[in-house]
């Protein structure tokens, strides 16, 4: 018989670590935010971090540049945009520090290809749209993540959900899940 911890290890990972985030961009307000974030990036995937509320000089440290690289895209006196790119399997802590305080973002590039949540969510599409969404009743590859997401979000709002199975299906996903699965499908090969 299994121990309680063994049985519920998945749940524990959810409770302890929060939900993995992979939205299109994230805004950190250093002055207001005390919440650390956790992000999963796959190899070659990029992610824009919008930093706002900067008070004084912003310093950024990246604990593992072999896993994640960090490039400043733009900045003003109170804001900055950094582009993060997954390079190879590993974890990195990226800390944004100003006069007010520090916000740390924990990033992971997983060994298994594909952002896990996005992949599991996206695989719901494959029964009808083909493995990796490349065929079936209609391929989804070739669309951008925004096109996939907005189409899904629009269907989810439709009141005609008993006349179209996709309108019914779209209602079952949260907004952030739609974003995650769209991001996965837009880059899957």
């Amino acid at each position, binding site marked *: *018989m*299994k121990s309680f911890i*063994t*049985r*519920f*290890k*998945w*749940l524990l*990972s*959810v*409770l302890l*670590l*929060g*939900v*993995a985030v992979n939205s299109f961009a994230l805004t950190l307000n250093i002055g207001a935010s005390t919440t650390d974030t956790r992000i*999963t990036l796959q190899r070659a995937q990029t992610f824009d971090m919008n930093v706002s509320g900067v008070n004084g000089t912003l310093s950024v440290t990246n604990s593992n540049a*072999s*896993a994640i690289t960090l490039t400043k895209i733009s900045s003003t006196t109170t804001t900055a945009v950094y582009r993060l790119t997954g*390079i*190879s*399997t*590993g*974890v990195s802590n990226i800390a944004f520090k100003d006069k007010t305080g520090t916000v740390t973002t924990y990033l*992971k590039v*997983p*060994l*298994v*290809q*594909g952002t*896990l*949540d996005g*992949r*599991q*969510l996206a*695989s*719901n599409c*494959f*029964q*009808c*749209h*083909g*493995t990796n969404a490349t*065929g*079936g*009743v209609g391929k989804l590859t070739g669309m951008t993540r925004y096109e996939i997401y907005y189409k899904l979000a629009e269907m989810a709002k439709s009141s005609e*959900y*008993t*006349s179209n*199975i996709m309108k*019914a*299906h779209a*209602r*079952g*996903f*949260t907004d952030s*899940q739609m974003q995650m699965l769209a991001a996965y499908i837009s880059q899957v090969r």
Partner: protein
Amino acid sequence: MNRRKFILAAAKAGLALSIPGIPMVSKAAGVNYDVIIVGGGMAGATIAKYLRIWSNYTLKVALIEKDTNYTSNIMSNEVLTGKRTVSSLGYAYTNLINKYGIYRIQATVSQINTASQTITYGATTLSYGALVLATGLEFDLWPGLTNVSQYDTAIPHAWKAGPQTTLLRNQLVAMTAGAGNNVVITIPKAPYRCPPGPYERACVIADWLRLNKPGSKVIVLDENPQVMAEKDNFMNAFSGAYGYTVDYRPGVTITNVSASPKNVTYTRPVGDATETVVVNAAVLNPIPPQRAPKLLSDAGLLNGGKFAPVDPVSFESMMEDNVYIIGDACNAGSIPKAGHIANQEAKTCASAILLNLTGYGETLALSPVLNSACYTPVTSTLATWLSAVYQYNGTSYVMQASHNGGAAIAAGSATTENYSKMTKWFGALMADTFS
């Protein structure tokens, strides 16, 4: 440097991980197969394929299945009406073997030993890193029956597509038309395989009888209190919306099934009393109560129930480590037993196994979503559909239907367009599973 550290170093050096012959597994080192899958139906075939794709073809995966081909249960009701043949529903394991590199073993597993992490068939014992049981179901005897062979020879349940489906088709063709010569279908208490399936069968047979056996009708004896899926659509059909009617009797308790003469005895409360009724059948289709196979029970995976309880986030057994149960044999709460969602259970379980075997499971959060979809013919040209999407509830640890106030959504009406989409859906689903 051990194998796992070597792989991590290789990954950091930017080397591709799909180097042939270098499994990325550490926890499973020294076993015959990283993953052994028992059962090659919808769930088993899907997880075999996706474990290979998602591990960049590094995991060594064996699929053990006794049959040469899989025969789809989905669409098999259309064999009964002559629209399809059993052979057209056959799916070979060729793509899994040649395209995806699965080790296919044609055998019947006789024993699972979770302590030593081994399975046995014939005189062979194999060790595993993770074991996936996608065994499907076993069928119980209805009261009055003495041997499951009665289902094979006299009164086919045809709830696993194959020879019994052909036998039932032949019995329908051979039956004498006319009042009193009826087709009787029994439905066991839920959970059973494919919630809308028995009602779909009643519809397509009734539609076929209307044209081919005038005067004969379908009588449905349902142990459930009401239609278990797409209630409005099926009740509409039963009451004559499509030119046939079905004599539907819910809330019965079946007390005897006789293969010769063919009849079913049931009791049902009527007011304060209980009526006992014997229903004669020209063709008897006794869909039986169902349970996980004895193999799982013997391995201590059922915890006294009829199905194997699993954590619905990973489909890992609640009873034993490194054992996963997907498809109809598992108890994953409200998740239905059906082919489309079994495919999704397989993908979800594949993700969990990959994380567990590669050691990354502890640090990634999982919040899976599982979708169920099916199209349902109600005549030879009209179909409806059913959609349900299940979200994980982290407070109660169960999967819950997440849209429409926790209920599934059914098509508003049966249409020819749905019938056409049904064919495309079926083709796509089987391709995602076997091609």
